């Protein structure tokens, strides 16, 4: 079916609808009515989107929570390893400190022993012997700055002090002291022993090369000179000990003040190197073990945190899954409810639609009923005089019986008589003809009576033809239709229900036939004409006119009635809108009329000035409806 669009000022552009018969009325309230609200679809889309958003937000939260948990765990782990590390370090430091102080204490004792054993007899005289050896000339030598900017003794200075050493070693008693020292230190953990005099000059060293060295600026020496032992842990790759050169050793060197026996007077400084390599190794081993333990702990903590993380992640996904399941279940339940509601709403809409159609039907029947009553009464006039005349004519014919008999007898007599004379017994005949009082005028009258009866019958058949044309029950529903003819029938019939104080004027212009459903158009016309007559109080006029206008047939029904208040003009086409008392108007007339017009691809417009009547115009397309009609 070709949808031909058409335009007309004041008319909405619309597709040419099929002029389908059954349901011009149903149509307008059905699919082509206000767009249907697809509840299920909208619900499904809206709720799925909403649920997806909820699920998404929840999932993101869960994810964030997992991340947060991981962060917390990581931080905890980091803190844990830091404390462990610190612990290990502290432990090692403490062990070393302990080691140092233990050895220092040991060295102090050793020094005491040493001093007690050797100082008075051996070292004190020896130091006294070395005292005259001047070192000032060596000390007077300028220090130089090395590459790192640190001032150090130049080689000449060192050589000068070495020279001093040689002079000390050359002193008498050196060999005995040396032998005694080595002898007493043998088999101990002491690797080296040095003795400084109060000037800071190395008077003795078990490593002979170091004798003569200046310790004036040595921090340990200074401390010891001030009365406090100073110890230091050092590592030496090579070290010349009593029993030869040893490798890779951890040593503690302690500067120790030598007190004159029985007094607190410092008379010299000892430096003792003792070997702590095995202790240190032990400490390191312990540290390592602690570290290993700590690492193991850390590992365990990491595993636990990983496990926790996994559990948290797992719980999160379980929660997300549960939420999804709940949402899905909720959606399912809601969907079922909504679908049921939709069905109910739909069936209610159907019921309403049905009721509306029934009302529309009954409105139509009411209009028809009114018209049938009007027509029945209109029939009474021709029926009245026709019946009257026929009865009178029959009476009259009775009066003609005798005269006709006489005339017949006479003509028979005349025909059967050979001669040219007939004998009439006047006396007898007078008596027989006494009853004749019919005149020739009566025959004329009878003819006129019967002539009127014929007119009456014509009137009645005209009425019947108009009724048939109006209902068109015996015609195809969709057909070529001369709107003017339809209007004539409708006006003819409507006159019977319009008060005779209302004049109906017809002014039909030349218009083409259109394909349509004539009985429905007739219904429009009847509704408009009846509305017009109802709008007229007392005298008035209804003018029905037609003309062709821009591809449309235009039918105007104008009245001189009350007109339409602009306040309600918008609403008159609404179903059930009426200003008439109950029983007079259902308010469906115009609604149905517009539905029908639109189903034909046309429309109805109204123009009214209150107090000056109203004009309703029906537009019906000439071309498109014809095509649509043929296709339908």
């Amino acid at each position, binding site marked *: 079916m070709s949808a031909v669009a058409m335009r007309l000022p004041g008319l909405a552009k619309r597709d040419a609808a099929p002029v389908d018969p059954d349901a011009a009325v149903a149509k307008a309230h059905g699919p082509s009515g206000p767009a249907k609200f697809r509840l299920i679809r909208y619900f499904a889309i809206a709720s799925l989107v909403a649920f997806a958003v909820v699920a998404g937000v929840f999932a993101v939260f869960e994810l964030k929570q997992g991340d947060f948990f991981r962060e917390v765990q990581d931080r905890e782990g980091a803190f844990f390893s830091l404390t462990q590390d610190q612990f290990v370090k502290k432990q090692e430091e403490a062990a070393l400190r302990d080691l140092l102080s233990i050895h220092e204490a040991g060295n102090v004792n050793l020094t005491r022993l040493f001093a007690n054993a050797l100082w008075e007899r051996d070292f004190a005289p020896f130091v006294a012997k070395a005292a005259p050896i001047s070192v000032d000339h060596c000390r007077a030598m300028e220090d130089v700055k090395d590459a790192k900017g640190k001032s150090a003794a130049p080689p000449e200075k060192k050589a000068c002090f070495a020279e001093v050493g040689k002079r000390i070693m050359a002193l008498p008693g050196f060999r005995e002291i040396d032998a005694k020292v080595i002898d007493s230190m043998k088999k101990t953990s002491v690797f080296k022993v040095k003795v400084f005099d109060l000037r800071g000059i190395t008077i003795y060293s078990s490593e002979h090369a170091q004798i003569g060295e200046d310790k004036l600026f040595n921090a340990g020496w200074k401390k010891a000179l001030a009365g406090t032992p100073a110890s230091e842990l050092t590592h030496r790759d090579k070290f010349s000990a009593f029993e030869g050169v040893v490798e890779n050793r951890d040593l503690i060197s302690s500067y120790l003040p030598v007190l004159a026996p029985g007094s607190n007077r410092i008379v010299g400084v000892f430096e003792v190197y003792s070997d702590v390599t095995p202790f240190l190794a032990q400490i390191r081993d312990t540290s390592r073990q602690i570290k290993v333990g700590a690492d193991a702990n850390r590992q365990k903590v990491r595993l636990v945190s990983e496990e926790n993380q996994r559990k948290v992640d797992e719980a999160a996904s379980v929660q997300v899954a549960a939420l999804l399941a709940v949402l899905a279940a909720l959606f399912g339940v809601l969907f079922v409810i909504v679908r049921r509601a939709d069905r109910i709403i739909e069936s209610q809409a159907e019921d309403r639609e049905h009721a509306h159609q029934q009302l529309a039907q009954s409105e139509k029947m009411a209009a028809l009923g009114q018209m049938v009553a009007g027509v029945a009464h209109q029939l009474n006039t021709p029926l009245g005089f026709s*019946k*009257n005349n026929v009865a009178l004519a029959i009476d009259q014919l009775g009066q003609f019986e005798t005269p006709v008999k006489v005339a017949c007898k006479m003509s028979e007599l005349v025909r059967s008589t050979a001669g040219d004379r007939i004998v009439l017994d006047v006396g007898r005949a007078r008596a027989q003809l006494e009853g004749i009082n019919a005149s020739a005028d009566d025959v004329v009258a009878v003819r006129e009576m019967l002539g*009127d009866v014929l007119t009456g019958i014509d009137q009645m058949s005209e009425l019947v033809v108009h009724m048939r044309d109006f209902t068109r029950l015996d015609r195809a529903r969709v057909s070529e239709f001369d709107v003017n003819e339809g209007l004539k029938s409708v006006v003819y019939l409507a006159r019977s229900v319009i008060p005779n104080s209302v004049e109906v004027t017809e002014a039909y212009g030349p218009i083409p036939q259109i394909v349509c459903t004539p009985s429905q158009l007739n219904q429009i016309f009847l509704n408009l004409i009846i509305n017009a007559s109802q709008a007229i109080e007392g005298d008035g006029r209804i003018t029905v006119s037609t003309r062709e206008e821009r591809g449309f047939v235009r039918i105007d029904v104008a009245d001189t009635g009350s007109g339409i208040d602009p306040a309600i003009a918008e609403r008159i086409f609404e179903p059930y809108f009426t200003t008439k008392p109950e029983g007079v108007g259902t308010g469906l007339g115009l609604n149905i009329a517009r539905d029908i017009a639109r189903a034909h691809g046309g429309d109805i417009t109204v123009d009214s000035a209150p107090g000056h009547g109203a004009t309703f115009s029906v537009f019906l397309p000439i071309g498109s409806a014809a095509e649509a009609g043929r296709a339908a």
Partner: protein
Amino acid sequence: MEATKGRVLCVDDEPHVVRALQWLLRKDFEVHAATNAADALRLLTQFDFDVVMSDQRMPGITGVEFLRDVRRAAPRAMRILLTGYSDLDAMVRSVNESEVYRFVTKPWNIRELPLLVAEAVEIARQAPAVVPDADVAQEAVDSLAAPVGPGAVSHRPTLVAMRAGESILLIDDDEGVRRSMHDVLGADVRVRHAGNLAEAVHALDDGAVSVVISDVRVGAVDVTRLIRLMKQKHPEVVTVVFSGVKDAQVVMDLINQGQVYRFIPKPFKPGFIRLIVDSALRRHRQLADTPEVRRRFQVQAAGEEAKVSLLRDVERAALAFAGGGAPGAGAFADGGTDAGPGLLGRLSGGFRRLFGA
């Protein structure tokens, strides 16, 4: 044979109808015809008609309006309305405004119509004309349209004083109507009230009723039979009927068989009722004082079955009343508890007296 034939005017916009009527009536009457009201009114000035018969639906003027004019222009002429339409509004107006003698529907009966016309001619010639008491009637009609307000009350004419023996019978089962009627008419107007058929018969039998004001129905029972039958025997009683029921046949029967004086559609305005009662009383006096006039309001006999069914309903109402021991039953049973047979006997006596059964 009379000196002159009855002179009849037939008015119908359909020429075939007047021709047919002429053919039907010309043998016995002098028939004049017009196809529009203007021609007809001109003929009225030229001839003294005994009967004017008019169609209801004519272009420009309705039969009712035309006959109202005839009533003024030729009060002696009897008016008959001929119509193919059972238009209730037209019928009510034909009662109130035109006071038609008969309402004839199309198609008419060709045996009865000449008889009816002959009867009307005879009445027109013998009974004196009733000059319409135009002002009252017109005022009554006008007040139908006028708003009810102080203005309407102020110019209300004083009621004609009731003479001894005169009374008004109100037949209605609605207490509200009864009270408002009392308020409107005032204390000096004797109003009897009947809430059912039995009471109505009793009241009618009991005393001189001048005017009957009645609803079409009390309860579910049709009162118009009573009105029609009573009018047959007592043409001097003037009846005013009001009703909320819209039934053309009821109104037609009330015209033809009841010669109802006024028919008032409900709801009505109190001031209007006053005017109606006033003019009804005047009409009653006319009829009471000049019995010959009564013929003008002669009714077409109601069928025998109407009488039978009415009697049955009256008896039923009486029994229900007495049996129920309703307070109003005292109106019938003078203090006696066993009122049944005595009451019925008295009622059927009254019924016979009233309706000649």
